[in-house]
């Protein structure tokens, strides 16, 4: 399989400064600092590396009607931004964690299952970056090429995989995430549930797709609230129709997960991540034709 370099595949250790034109539609609390300099008492500048908030690779209204602009504004502009700010504050007080890339930071602060206080925020920053990149406008549909082959090899069929993914999402208790990962040791794909901020990096697995199942990820859009207005907007009507499907009692979460799989998930990005993963995991001999 050839290495595909698409624009939407971004390594999580890179940080961009936000263009000011992007800030027009988001709350003013977003910080966009790449590097700050402080002068110590003796006049020698101390440089602290901070993390900045990365923008999703699409405009905030691009995922309508499946994920509203308001939802993204709050989820990205307030939650994700809040995590970045909290991480920066904590790193300010902790000398030991400088110089780590985000991936290293997560593994170190996870501390083999006994997480340090910085773990929660650091992991959530990474998780949300990964999540925005795992979606795209006009997403859903089916994976292609090698990824589809691998899914069919490890799950039987794409339909089976989708069912298992949705089932895992619906049986997760509390806050957490659902991941499609490439398990390094077993050299196969797996669906993993994690609680709170934990992500597969701590077990050295390679995540391909991530889905946020904290309530804040779907509450605004999928909790169909009782509108006093007689005229419902098109989006509200659409969501209300979804909620009338005879699903199990957890209508809202089920709708959200189904919509994610059918309309939002970016299989292109997953394919790119898989291609990159193959540099680290040997998935078998390539089929070299015999002359």
């Amino acid at each position: 399989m050839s290495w595909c370099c698409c624009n939407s595949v971004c390594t999580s250790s890179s940080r961009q400064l936000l263009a000011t034109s992007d800030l027009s539609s988001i709350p003013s609390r977003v910080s966009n600092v790449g590097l700050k300099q402080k002068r110590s008492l003796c006049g020698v500048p101390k440089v602290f590396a901070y993390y900045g908030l990365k923008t999703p690779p699409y405009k905030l209204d691009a995922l309508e009607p499946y994920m509203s602009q308001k939802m993204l504004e709050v989820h990205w502009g307030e939650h994700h931004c809040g995590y970045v700010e909290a991480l920066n504050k904590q790193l300010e007080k902790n000398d030991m964690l400088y110089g780590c890339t985000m991936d290293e930071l997560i593994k170190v602060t996870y501390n083999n299952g006994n997480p340090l206080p910085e773990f929660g925020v650091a992991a959530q920053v990474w998780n949300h970056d990964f999540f925005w990149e795992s979606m795209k406008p006009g997403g859903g549909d089916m994976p292609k090429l090698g990824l589809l082959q691998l899914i069919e090899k490890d799950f039987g069929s794409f339909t089976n995989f989708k069912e298992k993914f949705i089932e895992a999402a619906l049986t997760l208790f509390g806050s957490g995430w659902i991941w499609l990962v490439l398990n390094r040791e077993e050299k196969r794909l797996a669906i993993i549930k994690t609680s709170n901020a934990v992500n597969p990096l701590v077990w050295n697995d390679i995540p391909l797709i991530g889905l946020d199942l904290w309530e804040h990820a779907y509450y605004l859009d999928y909790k169909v609230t009782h509108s006093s207005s007689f005229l419902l907007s098109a989006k509200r009507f659409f969501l209300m129709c979804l909620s009338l499907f005879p699903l199990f009692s957890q209508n809202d979460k089920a709708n959200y997960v189904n919509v994610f799989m059918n309309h939002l998930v970016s299989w292109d990005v997953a394919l790119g991540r898989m291609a990159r993963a193959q540099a680290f995991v040997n998935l078998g001999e390539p089929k070299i034709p015999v002359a």
Partner: protein
Amino acid sequence: MALRTIITKRTLAGALGFRQQHRSVQTFSLPDLPYDYGALEPAITGEIMQLHHQKHHQTYITNYNKALEQLHEAITKGDTPTVAKLQSAIKFNGGGHINHSVFWKNLAPVRDGGGEPPKGSLGSAIDIHFGSIEAVIQNMNAEGAALQGSGWVWLGMDKELKRLVIEITSNQDPLVIKGPNLVPLLGIDVWEHAYYLQYKNVKPDYLKNIWKVMNWKYASEVYEKECR
């Protein structure tokens, strides 16, 4: 808008074709709120109360009943793997039911005494153990704000040691998980669904405001009952 409290009993004898005594599976149903949905405004909006009660709590009860029925069947058939497998669903949904049932009782509208600090034995116990009500509030709010993910903050009482404790539990674990002698006096739901529509991600504001509708009378009653 008020729902009736019903507890129904069903018997499963005969249907399974087993020759045994009549066994009944108790099903649970949604308890009434002792006040209107909008009565706790502006601390908690009516919209949140309605969703929280009619959707979330009801879902826990529905799933709990389902899990209990499956458990009953599995026990009858002697299907131990299924019995073991159902434990987490029972803990989660049963815990959710217990926790929310306590939660509705420990909130009260301002006109019914919500927010009034406790007098009597609970008041003095708080002063002895924590110094002041403000200390309790500060402590619980700090724990709640620091809690990552979903869970509850409790002011509880150890029946054996006759001591007050502040504990957090994650997901829907009831307070007894932290100690078999612990009885909840006050609980604050810090799952996002409890405050999201109104406070978004500003959890500290929710924690600050919920004390204005806290029903200390209920906590005092429970405390006095356990002290006897």
